[in-house]
Each structure stands twice: as C-alpha cells, then as structure tokens.
C-alpha cells in the first residue's frame, strides 16, 4: 500500500525541484537568448527573454561558406552525421558481440580482458593522441570519415561493453538453454534472444556511441585539417577562438549542435534509466 503524502510535503518537493530545474536551465536559457539577440558580446541582462529577436546568428552559422562558395555548414553537418551514425553502428556491433562473449563464455583471458576494458578508461587522452595521429597517418586515414569512425568507436567501446555485459548478465540463461534444445545455433541465441531482450541497453549503447562521435572535439580538431572534412564541433569552437570572439554565432551553433542529442535523450529517457542501471554500471 502506498502512503498518502501530506499536501505540504508535495508542495515542498515541487518547490525544490522547480528551483533546481530553474538553476539548471538558466545557463541554457542564456545561450538561447544570446543566439537570438543581435551583437557578438554578452550583454548585461539576466532576463532570459530576448528584447529583440533576430535570426541573423542562425543565418550566419547556417550559411557559412568558404571562399570557393562551398557550403561549409552543410558539409560539416553531413560529416558529423555520417561519423556519428557509422560510429553508432560500429560501436553497438563491436560492443554487443564482445559483451556477449564476456557474459556467456568462460575462457582464459576473460578476466584479463575485462580488466583491460576497464583500465582503458584511465588512459589520458593526451597520452594516446600523438601516437594515434601517427598511426592514422600511416594508414592513410587522416582527414577521413573512416579514421574518425574507427577512433571514436574504439574509444566508446569499453564503457559500452561494460554496460551491455552487465545487462546481458541479468537475462536468464534458461531462455538460451531452451532455444539450444530446440536446435538454435549459438549465433541464433545471441541474435534472436539476447539482443531483442536487451533493447534498453542497446539503445543506451547507441546513444553513448552517437554522443561520443557527435560531441567530440579534441581528436577531431587534431585529425582533421581540411575544413571540408571537419565536423561541427571543430568549426563551432573556432567561433570563439583566438582570432575572433563571436558569441552570438557560437550560441546559435551550440544550440543547433546540442539539439539532436537532446532529442535523442528525450526519446530514449525511459531506456536510459533501465538500460544504464538494470545491469549496466552494476557490472
């Protein structure tokens, strides 16, 4: 039986939540306001509603062209999208197969492998970045989508493997044993039973892979020289770089870049809670 709450208590909880949400959203609101008000500098006002609305910053960001008249924003959006999508596919595929093996098989090197996947999280990026550049260059993958996808999916894998392995562990083995008796193959068990049952965890894995690729900045900045092959974050950072400080365009760009990830979070928020914890970080 569920306890009845007193009215005062409910009001109090709402008050606290509204206050926290307000504080959390305030910076976001300021960015949105900046993106809609004219001028490149921050201005002295705390009112999140812009005094005059202009879309010039969005127009500027969206229509950015290089001197040859090629549409930079379009190209970079496409790059970001392709990189993120391929990373998601690669990341989910690689992480789910590895996680399945870690969860269902007992083999020598299993512990060592799991430990390695955990330890890899601790490698400082600066330690890896420089040699990675050389390797990508050797493989002829600098300035290419393929190179970036490879790097991103491997950096996303360790966390995803851990999350998925934990989730797979919670799926009863009896289901697979029954399928085995009915003549299902090993791969069939993985494909027809385990994967469909772990939809929330797969969704979260996909979300993380996508986010890693979509939001990443430092590696992209290092590995991409040609502005036509750059991703959106690299371009965006330049708006407030050393040579210019255009906060209006930055705000507009930031909002545009954040939008898809926010939408994904919104769509997947139910899976997020169950996928991340049901097995997830536990294992």
């Amino acid at each position: 039986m569920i306890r009845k709450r007193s009215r005062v208590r409910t009001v109090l909880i709402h008050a606290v939540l509204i206050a926290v949400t307000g504080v959390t959203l305030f910076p976001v609101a300021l960015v949105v306001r900046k993106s809609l008000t004219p001028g490149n500098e921050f201005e002295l006002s705390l009112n999140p509603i812009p005094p005059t609305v202009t879309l010039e910053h969005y127009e500027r960001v969206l229509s950015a062209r290089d001197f040859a008249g090629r549409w930079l924003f379009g190209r970079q959006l496409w790059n970001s999208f392709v990189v993120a999508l391929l990373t998601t596919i690669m990341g989910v595929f690689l992480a789910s197969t590895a996680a399945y093996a870690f969860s269902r098989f007992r083999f020598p090197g299993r512990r060592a492998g799991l430990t390695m996947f955990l330890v890899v999280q601790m490698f400082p990026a600066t330690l890896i970045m420089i040699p990675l550049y050389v390797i990508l260059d050797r493989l002829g993958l600098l300035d290419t989508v393929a190179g970036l996808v490879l790097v991103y999916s491997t950096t996303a894998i360790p966390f995803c493997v851990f999350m998925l392995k934990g989730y797979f562990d919670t799926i009863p083995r009896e289901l697979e044993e029954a399928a085995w008796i009915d003549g299902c193959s090993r791969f069939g068990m993985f494909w027809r039973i385990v994967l469909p049952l772990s939809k929330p965890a797969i969704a979260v894995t996909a979300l993380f892979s996508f986010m890693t690729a979509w939001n990443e900045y430092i590696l992209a900045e290092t590995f991409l020289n040609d502005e036509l092959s750059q991703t959106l974050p690299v371009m965006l950072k330049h708006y407030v770089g050393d040579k210019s400080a255009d906060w209006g365009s930055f705000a507009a760009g930031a909002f545009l870049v954040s939008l898809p990830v926010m939408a994904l979070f919104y769509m997947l928020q139910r899976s997020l809670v169950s996928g991340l914890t049901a097995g997830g970080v536990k294992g």
Partner: protein
Amino acid sequence: MARREAEARGVVLTWLIAALLMGATTLGLLLRERNRALVSRNEGAAEEALRRAQLALAVPLGEGREEDTVAALRALRGEGGIREVVLLRTRAASPELAFVRAVDLVAHSDPEVMPGPLRPRAARDALTPPRAKALYDWATRVESRSGRDRTWSRPTGGGETLEVGMALASKGTSYVLGLRWAPVEQPPGVPALGLVLILLVGLGFPAAQRFLGGRWRWLASAGGVSLAAVGCGLLLAGFAAEAPTAGPGTGFFQLLQSGLSQGVPRGGPGMAWVAVTLVCLALPFLGFLGLGNRAASAARQHRIAFAYILPAALGMLVLVMVPFLIGLGLGFFNHCDGRYEWVGLDNFVTILSGGGTSITDPLNFWFTLGVTLLWTFLNVLLHVSIGLALALLLKDPLLAGKGIYRVLLIIPWAVPNYITALMWKGMFHQQFGAVNQVLGLFGVEGVSWFSHFWSAFTANVVTNTWLGFPFMMVVALGALQSIPGDLYEAAEVDGASRFTQFTRITLPLLKPALLPAVILGSVWTFNQFNVIYLVSGGEPAGSTDILITEAYRWAFIRHERYGLAAAYATLIFLILLGYTLITNRVAKGAEGAMD
C-alpha cells in the same frame, strides 16, 4: 630422456636468438653514430640555405612587391642544391570566417607551376595532390606558430628532400617562404612497417603450432616469443631516433613519423641494450612455461568466444593499446628541438622531485596532484549528493510531472562538454558574466573570478558539477527503482524513522550500483580536460591546472616537452589504476563486478 634433450636444444636455441638480438642492437648503435654525422652535415646545409634566402628577401615583402621577391627567389634555385623555392600567402578563407585559412601559392621556383589558390583537395596544375596538401598544412602550421614575429621554422622533409620555412606577417596576411633542397645523404633506417611485420610474424608462430608436432612445436613457440620481443625492442628503440632533418619548431607529428619510418635504433645505447638483453634472458623461462602451446590450445578450445571478442579486441589493440604503449615509451625520452634522447627515468625523477620548485609552486607535481585530488573529490561528492538527492525526490510514484523534471534535469548531460565549458566561461566573465550579475543583486561587488586560486577553482567546480550531476541522478534513479518497496513497508511497520530507512535500507542497497558509477565518475573527473582548460585555463598562473592539463601544456605549449608530458600521463594512469584496484578490492565484499 627425449624431453631433456629437447630442453637442452631449446636453451641453446634461445641463447642463439639472444646473441642475434644483441648483434642487431650493436649494429643499430653503429648506424646511429653514422647518422649523427649525416644529420650535422645536413644541418649545415640548412643553415646555408636559410642564410641565402634571408639575403634574397632583404627586399621587404608586401602587397605589390611580390614581383621583386619572385625574381629574387627564382634566382636562388639551383644554388647549393636548392631544388624548390615556394612563397605562399595565407589569408582568411572567407570574409566572415577569419580562422579558416586559405593558402595561395604566390611564387614557385619552377616557372611552370602556376600561382593560385592552394587547396588540400584541389591541387593546382603542376603540383601533385599530396604535395599541395603538404604545402597547405605546412603553411598554416608555420603561420600559427610564428604569430607576428619573423621566425624560422623547419619542418622535416618526407625523406628525399629537406625543407625550411619562414613566416612573415604583414597586415593580416602572412607570407610563408619554403625552401627544399637535396640532402647531402639520407641516413638509412629500418622502416616501421617492417618492425610491425616482425611483430606480427612473431605472434603468428604460436598460432602455427597447431599444425606442427613434437619438437617443431617448441621451436615455433620460442621463435614466436623472441621475434615478438625483437619487434617490441626495435620499435621502442626507434623512438630514440633523431629525426635527420629536424630543427627548431618542427612539428612533433612529423618527427614521430620520420622517427618511425626511419626507426633506426640510435638512442639509448645503454638502456635499450640492457632491455633487449633482459628480454633475451627471460626467453628460456618463457619457453619452459610453454606459453605458446597453452595459448594455441586455448584458442582452439574457445574459438567461438574469441571469435565474438576479436573485432572489438582488434580495434582496441591497434587504436588504443599500441598508442598507449608508444606513449608509455615516450616517457623515457627527452624531446628537445626535434631530437629525442633516451634519458631513462630522468623525466619521472624531475616530476616527482618537483624539478627544483617548492611545493607551493603551481608547476610542482605535488601541488598539482593536490589540486587534482581536491578537484576530483569535491566534484564526485557534489555529483553524488546532488544526483542522489534529486533521485530521491523524483522516485515518488505519486509525484506529478516527474517525467518533465527528469527530462529537463538531464539536459546538461546532453550538451557537449566543450560547449558547457565555454558557456560557463562566459558566465564567469567579470563584467558581462551572468554570475556576477546575480551576485550583484545581492550587493556583492563584481568578482574577478580568474585572478584568485579559490575563485577560479570554484568556477571550475561549479561548471563541472553542472555537467556531471545528471549522470549520477540517472544511475541513482535506476538503482532506487530496483529496491523492493516491501522493505520500506516492513520498516514502517517496525516503526523505523525516515532517516533510519535511508541509512539502513536505501544506502546499503544503492551501494553496489553506485560504487562502479562513482569509480567511473572519479576517473572521468580526474581526466576532465575540457572544463579546466576552457573555463579557468589554469589561471591564475597555472595554479588551477590539474594533472591532465599540465601534461597537455608540457606537450603543446611549453617548449614541446613531449617526453615530460608522456611521463606525466604515465603517472596519471598509474594513480588511477591504483585507485581503481584499491576501491575494487574494498568493494569486492559488496559484489564481484568481474564475475
């Protein structure tokens, strides 16, 4: 009897391999001496070419005066082995985007090469695409390095030629002059691909064992391990290589590249030799352990499991493990003006002893470590407490609109890190920042956030708390949902207070789910580069830098001390590894995460 014989043969064989290894190393050392002489001769030529170019450019550069310069440059060609002279102009690519650089070819010593814009993907007439791309990259790099000053920069040539460059700035456009000439003689080298091949062949031996029988099997395992060791040793020693055409201001990437492609074992005579010898001494023991045999039979037995893991493991190996090992190796070298020198443990000693700075100096390792630990602790504490508090408020099933709250509170997580950091940096601006304006409402004078340690540190912590609490909130929410409600009902019946319920039921049951998240969160926070680098940027005077930003500064800002940076990174890794091992051991009682 036969067994003993085989063992004896094995030992002899291994010692043979050891002798071979030592021979290879000695040969490498000899090569190194020879290369040194070549490098110095090539450098003499570089000095000479630069001097001549300086003379030719006595005419000041600028709009309208390019013709004179072109004539002067053309005259240089052919002199003293100079093959190619290029003059490039870099400028903003479009009126709105000053940071996107377009590079024009202004003049070329070869009259057939037409001047015009130089694009990475659209090569001009006589220039082949890789050359055009290389020039483009190089021009932007030289320009960004030299700023407004008239400085010289010398990128390495790809192999067959040497290059020098120089940037001159004049009213928004920069000019970059490049010279290429034939080297006196190119130092020989062992190609990196060859080394990798040796490694792969070495690792392939144990796999081949399954098709072999008897004594061949033993031979294969010993051969495999030793060849792998040779590959590793040579690869490592390759880093000691002094890039033959290196000079001040050379890009590290190119250096490493040439160090790899011409990876002659030239550095660290003593230490590399000792390392190889040690590996050789260890070989017989490895052989007796039958490592190769065991691995082969295990691979046979568990091939399905390995097939599932292989794709991920392969990717991790190439793109994470190899760079990591190279990074670790780099910590034993010192990089100065494009040369790598084996210094053994010197970098670590310098860092750990503070390098002559007092413990209150921001550059002191222990000071930075203290800041890092405080930073990690405070952040994780705030993340967990705020996340948990919100999760407790949101878990109430009767709460109206909790879905909306949850969506809105997750937003900071969805915003890219670097955007969050830059956004908060703007909010902490002394004059225009929102934070000071809010404080102004309470009558607090405008705080100059980044000029005092504690205020700058606070700014960093606030930013990181904002972006990090949603993760903990979501984890705590999920964990709370998994606690059965009957427990609370039973506690209620027994008359337990809310506080007792929280400490006796909620916390203990949350622990297994929260602990891994806390470990992961602390590792992430410990290495949180974006926030520190973009919000406070280490201000004031580098005191708010944490270990990872400090390492980055040593590598890319302060004199390109890559070796020192790598040593820093290695220490970071060791600290985190130790931390995880200890917490895991402590947590083992709670739940075995590995099983």
